[in-house]
Structure formats: structure tokens, C-alpha cells
């Protein structure tokens, strides 16, 4: 079991949020993060595949890596808000903590 040795700086909504709770807590900013990271990755893949004419597969692969990275980044931010590590005014108002 993980032991956090740092004190939360904001009100704690849930000390150890589950994956379902965290994903359901995604706000607009989190989804924008997912979209932004994925969108930034796709042109990288497209350009990387240009030299050997595999733009399509390269683009999809980079998009997949970007989607995974963006999702994990948004997941971290959402979990951090629920755990009281990040500013979480919206969560406090929603859960009335």
C-alpha cells in the first residue's frame, strides 16, 4: 500500500479515489488536456512517417501514444484534485466538503 508522506494542501474529497471515481471527475479542462496532447502528437507522427511513406500508420500510432499520454495526464490532475493535492474548488462545492 502506498504511503503519502506529504500533507494535502486543499480539502480532501477522497483519500484514495478509484479509477471510476477519477474518470467521472474529469472536467472540461481535463478533456481539453486529453485533446490537446493527442492533437499535438498526431502531426508529429504524420511528419515522422513522411520519409518512408508511412504517414497514415505513423500518424495513428503517434495519436494512440498521445491519447494514452493525455489521458494519463488528465487522470493525474483529476486524482490530484480529489486527493487534495491540487486546487479543487469545484469538487469541494460539488461534494460540499
Amino acid at each position, binding site marked *: *500500500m*502506498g*504511503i503519502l508522506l506529504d500533507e494535502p494542501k486543499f480539502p480532501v474529497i477522497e*483519500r484514495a479515489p478509484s479509477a471510476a471515481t477519477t474518470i467521472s471527475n474529469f472536467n472540461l479542462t481535463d478533456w481539453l488536456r486529453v485533446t490537446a496532447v493527442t492533437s499535438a502528437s498526431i502531426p508529429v507522427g504524420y511528419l515522422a512517417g513522411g520519409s518512408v511513406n*508511412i504517414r497514415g*500508420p505513423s500518424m495513428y500510432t503517434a495519436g494512440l*501514444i498521445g491519447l494514452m499520454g493525455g489521458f494519463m495526464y488528465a487522470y*493525474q490532475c483529476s*486524482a490530484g484534485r480529489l486527493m487534495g*493535492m491540487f486546487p479543487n474548488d469545484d469538487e469541494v462545492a460539488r461534494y460540499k466538503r
Partner: protein
Amino acid sequence: MFEHDFLAPFPEIFLINATIILLIYEVVLSTSKKYDYPPLVRNVSWLGLLSVVRLGGRVWENEEPYRYLITILLLAANAPLTVANLFYNNLIINNFTYFCQIFLLLNTASTIVMCLDYFKEESLNAFESIVLILLFTRSMLLMISAYDLIAMYLAIELQSLCFYVIPALKRDFEFSTEAGLKYFILGAFSSGILLFGCSMIYGFIGVTNFEELAKIFIGYKITLFGAQSSGIFMGILFIAVGFLFKITTVPFHMWALDVYEGSPTLVTTFFSIAPKISILANMVRVFIYSFYDPTWQQLFFFCSIASMILGALAAMAQNKVKRLLAYSSIGHVGYLFIGFSCGTIEGIQSLLIGVFIYVLMTINVFAIVLALRQNCFKYIADLGALAKTNPILTITLSITMFSYAGIPPLAGFCSKFYLFFVALGCGAYLLALIGVVTIFISCFYYIRFVKIMYFDTPKTWILYKPMDREKSLLLAITLFFITFFFLYPSPFFLITHQMALSLCL
């Protein structure tokens, strides 16, 4: 059961997933008739670079998003990073881990940038090398955050297995095959010694966690002649020998020269840079945090002195570039061990500063070696008249060599000055004296580069081709740091001090 544990190592999880995706992508596309069996190395290098750069977004410990950028740039001392123990105390996250991992990822990104053009020039369609580099990076990230002997050993083995393969990348070149085989045999041998040491520690003490070992060894005098203590002594000695093998310290350095020379130049670059960070970080945690005892100081003093002397004297007779840089690497490990063997917070700080600056200089040198490689640049004499054909590259290499030689006010001087300052502070006067003398001796072969570039004529006709954009950018960034580090080193000193404090407190 694992409440927070999978949240903290998200970078490692992301890297594993990205590596699997890339591996499937490579296998499917490289055998694709539709796309005419394309060579994938450059393409996969860019996707690998995308994965590594993406990893830099570790924000879960910080108050605001992108705080990690601010942390790296300016405000390390004020960034309240989270400390956490994960997976039943097998992994730890703190300032020390965080910054070592960020630094490691930057170095991996630099290495991948250097290889973008390399495989095309060598006509090597070895896309699997990028996957191996990513797997190696993942294992080093785990090694830095290991907090248990078992976790540490697993991470070391993960790293080693990836690394055994890539020296033998050039399958039709006998030196490369020889290098791979030598590294495999000696690496397996050193891993076995290290594991034996870990098993002896567990057998005599009953625990493997670093924190518990630290509590047990407080005030406990480890000697060779006590009934139980001798077993513990031998166990720790074996662990030390295993680590010293892997970091190419005298007298366990023999394999490094042939492996560095026989491996493809890109692999030599990676050998010189990446393992030093992770293994030194691990050694600091094991020997300064867990097994803190003056007994080991004598061993590391000896290794430091021997490495500095051998690195200085043996390199003087070398004519081949890679072999000379291998001896230089051994010598620099000796300098880094000055800080390590002092065992103080300032010692750890000087070690971290030394590693950072050494890595920057090595990236710079190997980027130049790779850029000149297409002209059959193997011997130092091949650099003759470089000043006439490529003056900017000559100035770059000259400045880097002066930095290696410790000439002020370059970054190399700053790191060595602080290391010797720390040695004097903890009473290791002999260490500092030998360090200064060996630096003077090493000036000979570093400045020999400058003499050959400016004053010698080449032995054969050489055609110089323009360098690719990525290497140029990398050279510019590293040269900037090497040259202007002395103007504003405070942020970096603050970061390294924070790292050292998080380890000791």
C-alpha cells in the same frame, strides 16, 4: 490494497505501454508488403522521442500544472514535492528520485536525437534498438526509485538485459559481436555477485528494505572479524563490487574499453551517459542511506584514487578516439567518487553536480564524434586541419575539451572545484591532491585534440559533410551550458542541495 501505488509511477507505466505499442507497430509495418517493407528506424526514433518527451509531465506531486517546468528552471527549493513510499516500501518518490528521473529522461531524449541520422548513415535497419533504449530507460527510472534490494536487483537486471543486446547491433562486424559477448558475460558475472551480496544481507539480517537496513545499521559497527558482522561485511562488499563493475571503476574497468570501442558509436554514447546516473543514484541510496559506515569510505577512496590515476595515465597513450573517451570516462568516475566517498550532504551535492556536468560534456563530445563519423573518424589524428574546414565545430570541441580538462571558467572546472572543495572539507586531503595532479596530467591528452585540430595536417583526404539539424541544436544547447554555467549556477546548486537533503533527512 494498492491505493495510491499505480498513480505515482504513471511515467513508467506510460513508457511500458508506449514501448509495447511501438514494438507492435514496428513488427507489423516492417513486414508489410503494402508499404514495401519500409525502413523504420528514423520514424520509430521520432515516435520514441515523442514518448520520452511526453514523460516529462509528472505533475501529480505539484500544486499547479506545469510546476515541474518551473521546478527544473528556477524554483526547486520552493517546490513542495510529494514524498511517498509505494508498493509496500519497494519504491520511493521524493525530490532526489524526481530530479534524477527528469535528468535521465532528458539524456535519453538527447541520445535518441543523436541517433536520428546515425542509422541512415550506417545503413542499419535496427528499429529494435529504439525499443531497447526505451525499455532500458524504463528500468533506469525504476532503479532510481528502488527502495528495496529485490526491487533494485530486478531493475538492474531489466536494465542489463536490454543493454546486453545493443552492443552487438552490427551483426556483421566482429568487434561489435565481441563487445556484446564480453558485456553479456561480465555483466552477468557482476549481477551474480551483486545478487549473492543481497542474499547474504538477507540471510544475516532478515530484511531487504533500505529504510529498515538504515535503522538496523545506525551505530552498528561492521567489521570483518565479528561472527555475524563478517557475513554482513562480505554481503555489502559483494554488493559494492557488483556496482563498481557496472560503473566501470578501477579495478573492475577492464571490460569497458573493449566494449566501448567495439560497440556502435551511438551505443558507446549511451553507455557513457545513462547508466552513470541511475547506478550512482542507486549507490548513494544503498551506501549513504542504508549502509552508512566508514568502512566503505576506504574502499571508495581507493577506487576513486585508482580510477583517477589510471584514467589520466592510460589515456595518454591512446590514439583511438573511443578508447580515449573510455579512459576519460573512467577518470571522471574517479572524480565523482570523491563526492560519493565523502558521505556528507555536500558530497552528495557535489556528486550530482559532477554527474550533470559530465553528462553534458559527454553528450557534446559524442555528438561531434557522430557528426564526423561519416568521414571514417576513428583516430585522433583524423581531426587534423578541422579548424580550416569547420571552424565552428572546432571551437565547440575545443571548449568541451577545455571543460573536460577543468580549465576555468567552464562547467568542468566548476564541478571539479566543488568536488575538491568537499574533499578538503571532510578531511580527504590526499584525494584532493591526487585529483588535482591527475587533472594536470589529463590536460595533456585533452589539449592534444586542440593542437591536432589547429596545427596538424590530415593523414588522408577527408570530405566534410554538413551536420544534421538535430545534432547542431543539441551541440548548441550543451555548449551553451558548458560555457555559461559559471554565470548563474545558483538554480542548479539549489536543486542539487534539495536532492541531497531529501535523501538524508
